[in-house]
């Protein structure tokens, strides 16, 4: 058995072992843990699109919304009696629906590059949100609730392990070289006979699929979803994780997802210390100011991201 597959089995076993104890963790920490898992899924999948394939996407929350709403709609339709098998198929269906949305975004992206693509994906994200806001069966502006809480520690981190295994093996395969070729020089790649269209669409479809799974996990964890929760700002949150982690470095991006999920909670506790000067406490409450300054400074000084070329698995040739 190859080394990555052994690691995957080990990670799954660890998830199973962890889930035994997850019931006894403080619910607040449990909440943060699950959100870390969901954010890792989102960041790793967006990293496939931005970092490996070089297609700047600002609509990732839209894919997440498609996955969240489709899977929630399915489990609600099946009723409370539905077991974990129904939950898993709903998750999968959510992923497939999001992948279809990814296909819809990927196809126009064939003709667009860089800045234009960023705006178009942003537009698609807003269109998805707008459609949900107008869809009565999905709760429209009121949001959708009533899903059972199926998502737990095991399912979240099993998905994380599978997704990271899938993305890492994909990136290290022949396909991975194709992605990198499209990112590094699209025109040269095309001249070398690489089907750039195929790789771009593939990156969008796979990235959207994983984001859809993350959306499904989120919907069945929070048990309530609202269109505003999948707005442009949510997409930016995910983009920040990818940028800070280092575009193209799966391990760095996962690390950034962990740090950026824990950091707001940490900053929240900082703002409770009365002995800190008031401006520090106020700044701690406004984490987005820190993030935005961090992005600008990073781009000026270290465009490859905080964790640079850190990566899982084999060394690149």
């Amino acid at each position, binding site marked *: 058995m190859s080394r990555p597959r052994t690691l995957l089995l080990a990670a799954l076993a660890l998830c199973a072992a962890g889930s035994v104890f997850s019931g006894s963790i403080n619910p607040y920490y449990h909440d943060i843990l699950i959100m870390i898992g969901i954010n890792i899924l989102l960041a790793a999948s967006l990293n496939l699109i931005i970092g490996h394939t*070089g297609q*700047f996407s600002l609509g990732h929350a839209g894919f997440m919304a498609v996955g969240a709403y489709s899977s929630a709609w399915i489990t609600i339709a099946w009723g409370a009696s539905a077991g974990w098998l129904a939950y898993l198929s709903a998750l999968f269906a959510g992923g497939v629906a999001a992948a279809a949305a990814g296909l819809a975004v990927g196809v*126009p992206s064939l*003709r*667009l590059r*860089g*800045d*234009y693509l*960023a*705006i*178009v994906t*942003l*537009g*698609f994200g*807003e*269109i998805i949100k*707008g*459609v949900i*806001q*107008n869809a009565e069966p999905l709760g429209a*502006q009121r949001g959708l609730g009533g899903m059972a809480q199926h998502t737990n520690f095991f399912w979240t981190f099993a998905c994380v392990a599978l997704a990271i295994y899938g993305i890492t093996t994909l990136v290290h395969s022949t396909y991975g070289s194709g992605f990198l070729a499209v990112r590094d020089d699209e*025109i040269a790649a095309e001249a070398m006979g690489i089907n750039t269209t195929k790789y771009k669409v593939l990156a969008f479809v796979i990235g959207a699929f994983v984001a859809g799974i993350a959306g499904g996990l989120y919907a069945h964890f929070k048990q309530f979803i609202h269109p505003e929760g999948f707005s*442009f700002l949510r997409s*930016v949150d995910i*983009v920040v994780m990818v*940028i800070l982690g280092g575009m193209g470095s799966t391990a760095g991006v996962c690390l950034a997802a962990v740090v950026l999920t824990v950091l707001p909670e940490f900053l929240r506790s900082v703002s409770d210390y009365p002995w800190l000067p008031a401006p520090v406490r*106020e*700044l701690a409450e*406004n984490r*987005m*100011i820190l*993030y*935005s*300054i*961090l*992005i*600008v400074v990073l*781009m*000026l000084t270290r*465009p490859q991201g905080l964790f640079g070329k850190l990566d899982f698995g084999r060394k690149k040739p």
Partner: protein
Amino acid sequence: MIEFLQQLVNGLSQGAIYALIALGYTMVFGVLRFINFAHGDIYMIGAFAGFYSAPKLLALAGGGPSFAGAALVLVAAMALCAAAGVLIERVCYRPLRAQPRLTVLIAAIGVSLLLENGGQFAFGADPQAFPEIIADSAIDLPASWGEFSLLTITVGQVIVLGSTAVLLLALRAVVLHTRTGMAMRALSLNPLAASLMGVNTDAVVSFTFAVGSAMAGAAGILTAIQQPSIDPLMGINAGLKAFVAAVLGGIGNIPGAALGGVLIGILEALVVGYISPTYRDPIVFAVLIVVLLVRPSGLLGKPEREKV
């Protein structure tokens, strides 16, 4: 019929605002081939510059809402936004000019987030009531106009359209008839050749940012005259719509930006009037996607060939 005309009037005054913001996108794109994501937030800065300066400037112009006071507020906001635009370019974009475009784009998104969140920190997150700098009321149309006298046209709408027309003509004069304008056009045709001919690239880029940001600042004040509620996140949506307008008109093309702005404004008004306000944003973005797929160079733009 009268309802349709009313939607056109409303759409036109909103479209004028989009046109002013779209100019900044299109001018910067023309010179640097890059989308200044933070441009919409400059518009917000303009509105807040007016919010804080209006009480003093109105007192200077004799107290109370007046044309002179409003003009002072407008000029102050434009000057402040021009300075902000130049500063942002100097600090955040100029050092990155040789970097890949993705790096600059991300830096621009960072600046945009910084302005939005810094704005919420400095100005407060809640919407603020913009002071009345000009008495905005409906104009009584003469009864001799028959059916058309039923239209509602406000003083604010007339001022918005008038100021926009003046600013557009001034910009046209600058771009077509001054040496700096000529340098701007040269730079957008071929940056390398322009710099070889002795065009001071940095100075022209700074000037472009100054003019574009001043237009956005003016748009901020003109919006606040019509809808006197401003908040630090008002720039996101307006900026995106204006960007769609710039693309629709042909990005890099100055008359195109004005045309696109007016068309988007009218489209929005018609969607709100005849379909549903909740479909306003999705339909505008759908227009963007259709334009990019069918005619990426926009209505007035010339197709650009990609060089290796």
